[in-house]
């Protein structure tokens, strides 16, 4: 195979004109290019939504601040959440999946390459549509520009009566469009993983990243559709005079909540399971051991996938369900802690007895483990309904979910970036800058999100553009804001590292980490066709088998 690998220059070098190279990227159906497009698109919105967060934090640094108007704050609040979830985390995870899945299962490309491209462009267009609202959203006088209804867009606040003009419609349509793209990606993940594995790679021999993305694909299929349905209903209400959520006509605001959270809860598992996948690939390599308990990791993920569809109303404990309804959702919510906790133990078991290399990807994964543990525990607190009656709608919840999304998912993402950057770019990142990024970011993260729990415990609700002095919230808000800027500094160092290393980084070679899955058998970056000959595998770690012919995995699995 090595004799058949064609040496490829990294994209951007060579003598082809810029226009032609750009055109390549626009019309591509290659999973690697689409993966990188997703990732770059998401990174851009990461910065934009991060600025929206900084604007909010500056406004909240002292009580009764006048940095921005209430209207602007509410738009920032809505756009920050909507952007981060739909146009940052989802695209970036889809991007990594699109890039890595075919490489890790020994396939040439995804099952449906054109659908892959269609999905990306739908997502991209959705993001542009959402942000066009800043310019084009002015409807009736005083209607506002960008949507300001919160990222859940609760009815009846979204009815024409309470949200005149087009801001809400930008929210609805942008997410409808990108939702179609997401479903396309879900279909692609499922079809690719079930139908394109290389010979010998049974379902029990796939890398965990493939398994977890298969579960994600399944979840996307059933989870995005309820949101799409609810958004169609909202459009019918707003433009065809429908009454789905029109409480004056007997409609139900609670119905929107049910539909939204039937989407919303599995959605957060769609966000976190790919992060689990990254950690499941990185921790073994930097502990120099296989993942502890592969079958249970698969089973636990499938369990999480199913149970996640039964917990949704734990976001609705305060809306007045009966005590039986509330109890049911407490049960399912605490139940899902079991498979989730199992995974943490399995990662610990992987590290135990290994030889842990504290390279930058591993640092971020250790941060993930620490923070995801805490996030899971505050999640249990929120899952006990009476405690939830105090904590929900407050900054405690905001701290909890940022702990999951930033402390968990973003940390795992940074780990993934540093781990697969050599493969995607052919260059090693700068280790010193990487460590600097890690320490800046983790300090800022803890300053912000540890202390953010406290105002919640002291009665500070969320989604408020200012707050009253004298309630004991001032000093905590101040600290939270300082931490936000530290995190921004960390992200800046990260971006600089990515760009600098692209030009000046050492050549990575095929397999800089001495890893064991198929993507490390190709060149860095991989050739267009991924593999010159379809690989044949006998175990979960095909490269381990090749490097240790005297002690291959397939003897023990």
């Amino acid at each position, binding site marked *: 195979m090595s004799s058949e690998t064609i040496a490829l220059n990294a994209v951007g070098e060579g003598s082809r004109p810029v226009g032609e190279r750009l055109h390549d990227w626009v019309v591509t159906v290659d999973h690697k290019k689409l993966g990188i497009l997703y990732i770059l698109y998401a990174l851009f919105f990461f910065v934009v939504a991060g600025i929206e967060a900084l604007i909010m934090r500056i406004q909240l640094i002292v009580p009764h601040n006048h940095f921005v108007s*209430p*209207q602007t704050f*509410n738009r920032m609040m809505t756009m920050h959440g909507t952007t981060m979830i739909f146009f940052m985390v989802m695209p970036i995870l889809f991007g990594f999946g699109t890039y890595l899945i075919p490489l890790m299962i020994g396939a040439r490309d995804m099952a449906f390459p054109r659908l892959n491209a269609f999905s990306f462009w739908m997502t991209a267009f959705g993001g542009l549509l959402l942000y066009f609202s800043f310019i084009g959203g002015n409807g009736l006088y005083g209607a506002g520009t960008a949507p*300001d*209804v919160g990222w859940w867009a609760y009815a*009846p*606040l979204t009815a024409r009566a*309470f949200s005149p003009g087009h801001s809400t419609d930008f929210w609805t349509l942008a997410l409808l469009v990108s939702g179609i793209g997401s479903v396309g990606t879900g279909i692609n993940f499922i079809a690719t993983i079930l139908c394109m594995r290389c010979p010998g790679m049974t379902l029990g021999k796939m890398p965990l990243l493939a398994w977890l993305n298969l579960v994600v694909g399944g979840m996307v299929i059933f989870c995005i559709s309820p949101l799409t349905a609810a958004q169609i209903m909202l459009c019918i209400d707003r433009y065809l005079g429908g009454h789905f959520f029109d409480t*004056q006509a007997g409609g*139900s*605001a609670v119905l929107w909540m049910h539909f939204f959270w039937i989407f919303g809860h599995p959605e957060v598992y769609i966000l976190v399971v790919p992060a689990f996948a990254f950690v499941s690939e990185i921790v073994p390599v930097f*502990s*120099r051991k296989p993942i502890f308990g592969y079958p249970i990791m698969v089973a636990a993920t499938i369990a999480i996938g199913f149970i996640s569809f039964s917990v949704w109303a734990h976001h609705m404990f*305060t*809306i007045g369900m*009966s005590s039986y309804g509330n*109890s049911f959702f407490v*049960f399912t919510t605490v*139940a899902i802690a*079991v498979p989730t906790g*199992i995974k943490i133990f399995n990662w*610990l*078991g992987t*590290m*135990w*007895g*290994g*030889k*842990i*290399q*504290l390279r930058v990807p591993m640092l971020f994964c*250790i941060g993930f*483990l*620490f923070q995801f*543990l805490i996030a899971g*525990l505050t999640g*249990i*607190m929120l899952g*006990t*309904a*009476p405690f939830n*009656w*105090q*904590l*929900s709608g407050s900054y405690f919840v905001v701290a909890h979910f940022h702990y999951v999304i930033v402390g968990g998912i973003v940390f795992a993402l940074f780990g993934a970036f540093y781990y697969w950057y050599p493969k995607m770019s052919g260059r090693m990142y700068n280790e010193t800058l990487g460590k600097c990024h890690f320490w800046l970011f983790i300090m800022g993260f803890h300053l912000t999100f540890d202390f953010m729990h406290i105002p919640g415990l*002291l*009665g500070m*609700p969320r*989604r*408020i*553009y*200012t707050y*009253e002095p*004298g*309630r*004991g919230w*001032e000093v905590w808000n*101040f*600290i939270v804001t300082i931490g936000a800027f530290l995190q921004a500094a960390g992200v800046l160092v990260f971006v600089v590292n990515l760009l600098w290393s692209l030009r000046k980084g050492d050549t990575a070679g095929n397999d800089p980490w001495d890893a064991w899955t198929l993507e490390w058998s190709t060149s860095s970056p991989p050739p267009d066709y991924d593999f010159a000959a379809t690989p044949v595998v006998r175990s979960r770690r095909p490269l381990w088998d090749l490097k240790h012919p005297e002690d291959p995995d397939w003897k023990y*699995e």
Partner: protein
Amino acid sequence: MQLAGALLAATLCFGAPPDPSQIPSIFRPQSTPANSIFHLSQLVLAITGAIFAVVFSLLAYSVRKFRQRDGDDGREPPQVYGSNQVELAWTVIPTLIVLVLFLATARVIHSIQDAPKPAGAIEVIAVGHQFWWEFRYPALGVVTANELHVPVSNPANSTPTFLTLLSADTDHSFWVPRLAGKTDLIPNHPNHTWIDPQETGVYLGQCAQYCGVQHAKMLLRVYVDSPEQFAQWVQAQKTPAANASNDAVAEGRRIFETTACVNCHAVTGTIADGHFGPDLTHLMSRDTIAAGAAANTPENLRTWIQNPDAIKPSSLMPAMQLSNHDLDVLTAYLETLR
């Protein structure tokens, strides 16, 4: 060290530490629902704290003990794929913990939500509006806004307050942390909650479900009165507005009754019977205006009428476009609504 200095600077900037009674902390409950939640929270915190201690120790220990040392021989460590006994243990134990948590929680849910209403209970209907609270006491014939008065409840002879929660427009949420967990006010979906505060005082809260532009300033004040104070307050609230005491006040009342004020506001004893905005019959009995956004002073009242956006931008109170003279007499009239 630097952090401590920054904290000190921040504290100095923020002035004296807040009065503890004004901190709406969920850990200082003064009413049975908040108390039950507090006790449950202690159990939950104990369990999650223990889990954290164990798992964090394991994590810290493994990072320290199994770190690759300098001068390592480069051999791979033993390749362990799993362990059935260990995996069983860490499945069974969390399942048991989770079961205990669920049972404890279900008990508290039932005790709070299904609590029977005793005979001496005060009944209040709370209606959420953008961006103020309407409180009606149907049995007592009282209508007021934003500041809820309830009698203190003696555990031996309980006089709790049971609230029915409605909404006139979007979703809101009634949250006074020291008295109870929050319950939402959703249009076309009546909800119920109850409190039985055991100490007199003022308890602070605010709307906890995003309801629009001025969600942040939909504040709540619950005045827990002694039985005598409460009876006095009810009596005062039931009397209609006093007649005009002098010419300026009479002129102010005339302006009130002939301007758009009456479209939104009600003052019993006058022709004003609007229900879109707060009932003003006893406006001066309240400590704040604009749902807590400003103290109830003549200056603030005047500003509120002339330019509400200065106090609560985009609230639904329109700027009344009155001349200075009209504003003065109108304010004088409103000042008489005790």
